[in-house]
């Protein structure tokens, strides 16, 4: 980035075609501090996400991350790709827990184009660990620029 004070978030709908991919993003290795920072930001104070003795008392090896952390990161990657005002729908299905030390990869692509009063793109999104363990599958719908 040449100028750190310049936003790169799209404002107007962007042009997308089937097969276009979201810029790849990696987050981690996750730390307990990441969980605590998200707890403070998002308001999820379930002890299972920050209190090691509590988590171990529940039979877990350690605390684990709240699902809304990778969901939120994924949302922010989609917003950075298509523009926050152009997102029309976002749906996530949590398929695996995230643990301290995990590195997460975020990917997505356009699977279909359509129109619902405006040109739209359907997106399929995946979060997994760098070991290939599934974390989240998601879909989104975005308003896009009209094709010529």
């Amino acid at each position, binding site marked *: 980035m040449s100028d750190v004070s*310049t*936003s790169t978030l799209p404002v107007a709908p962007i042009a997308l075609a089937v097969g276009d991919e979201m810029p790849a993003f990696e987050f981690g290795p996750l730390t307990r501090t990441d969980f605590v920072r998200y707890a403070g930001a*998002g308001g999820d104070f379930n002890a299972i996400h920050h209190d090691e003795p509590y988590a171990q008392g*529940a039979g877990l090896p350690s605390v684990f991350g709240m699902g*809304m952390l990778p969901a*939120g990161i994924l949302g922010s990657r989609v917003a950075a790709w298509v523009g926050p005002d152009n997102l029309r729908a976002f749906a996530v*299905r*949590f398929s695996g827990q995230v643990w301290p030390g995990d590195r997460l990869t975020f990917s997505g692509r356009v699977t279909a184009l359509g129109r619902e009063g405006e040109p739209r793109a359907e997106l399929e999104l995946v979060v997994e660990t760098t070991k290939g363990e599934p974390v989240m599958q998601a879909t989104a719908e975005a308003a896009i620029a009209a094709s010529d």
Partner: protein
Amino acid sequence: MQSSELVGRDLGAVSFPVDRSKVAELARAFGDEDPAWFDTEAAAAAGFDGEPTQPTITVLGDHWREGGALAHAEALQLDLARLLHGEASWEYLLPVRVGDRLTARSEVTGTSTREGKRGGKMTFFTIETTYENQRGELAVRRKDTLIERGESA
């Protein structure tokens, strides 16, 4: 109580501000350094009419509910040690801006049960929440699926 008797249960309303600081805190938690999340002028320079917010901004309501993120699970008297968040989805009708005040209203709209893979009955609860802004306009609809795993055999 049968879980199906919970359908239609009103889970209450909460009104909360969409603060600049919380948008910036979420951006830091998400590893997102775009200045539009942090700085009014950067958002204006990018061309936004106001300051944008993240797709999961609706979580901020949890700070204002008694019981926080667990308020709904507690209202349904779920066992928190067996609680899973299965799915979440959002439908965006209007942009949410920094400075907005949202009012969230939640209701149980469905329940179902299924045998778990490792035995024991899993119970699914669908909760729908609407977010209205300070002008009384419906801005976001959210749907969550909470799962209570069965007692381990």
